[in-house]
């Protein structure tokens, strides 16, 4: 079974998210949106948007979005078939979270790695 195929995003927490977002906007030129991050489109050799993208954002240290992990970061991994992968991970004894999200944005599931990092698994909508 095809499992992870790419990096869909990287998210990290800050003590002062507004200030840190502003620093990345000003000094690194990142087009931080009002939701706290941006999506970097993958590009071809000419610099044109190719297909997928990698999302980046800075959230609040107070947020429980990475719970039950206490890590200050979370990586989103693109997968081809999230339901099949979650089933396999459960069978393999991995700590798969019960929560599952299925919407126009794609399908999401989560598993905790052995060092306590929350791993976000994302099956993008077809064509993305």
């Amino acid at each position, binding site marked *: 079974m095809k499992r992870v195929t790419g990096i869909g995003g990287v998210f990290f927490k*800050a003590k002062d998210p507004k200030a840190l977002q502003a620093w990345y906007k000003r*000094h690194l*030129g990142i087009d931080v949106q009002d939701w706290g991050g941006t999506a970097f489109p993958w590009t071809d050799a000419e610099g044109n948007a190719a297909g997928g*993208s990698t999302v980046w954002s800075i959230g609040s240290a107070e947020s429980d979005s990475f719970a039950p992990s206490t890590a200050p970061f979370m990586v989103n*991994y693109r997968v081809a078939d999230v339901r099949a992968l979650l089933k396999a991970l459960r069978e393999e004894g991995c700590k798969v979270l019960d929560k599952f999200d299925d919407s126009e944005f794609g399908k999401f599931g989560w598993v905790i790695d052995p060092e306590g990092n929350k791993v976000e698994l994302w099956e993008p909508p077809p064509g993305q």
Partner: protein
Amino acid sequence: MLCDPASLPGRQRYALMRARLCVSAVTIATLLICTSHAQDRPPAPGASGETANNAALRRVTGIGGVFIRAKDPAKLRAWYKTHLGIDVQVWGGTAFRWVDAAGVPANGMTAWAVSNGSNFAPSNASFMINYRVADLRGLLKALREEGCEVLDKVEASEFGKFGWVMDPEGNKVELWQPPEGK
């Protein structure tokens, strides 16, 4: 600028979804002057002219890599290899090729690795992000002028050019100018 959400409805939707799922919406304070570091240094000579140049400078263009610090890197890599199917190489990570809508490899890639994090120093964060940049030397010069904490070390090899800056919360930021055409 880099990504116009209006022309990228799917990405915009994804971004909004992320906001709904796990990112608390915040208002961005625009044009904050660098960090407290800026106040520790005298203004750069000729700063006004350089500011105009810096304004035109293209900075980060994408995510080049994400690196995770582990207590037991070998064990954690094995977990990602076994359960997530990541093709972990002997150097401790892999490179995910970007693909187009048809799944054909495009051009760039995003690296991923698990390590003991010794290369994150002087940061003691549990992760480090690599950002693709168009002009590393130009950017490092601008960051120095702006009072940012740029590390002295710069690397240039067949893999491209690398420089590093510390963000205001102590995360080491890796800046990478890929080789031509990569």
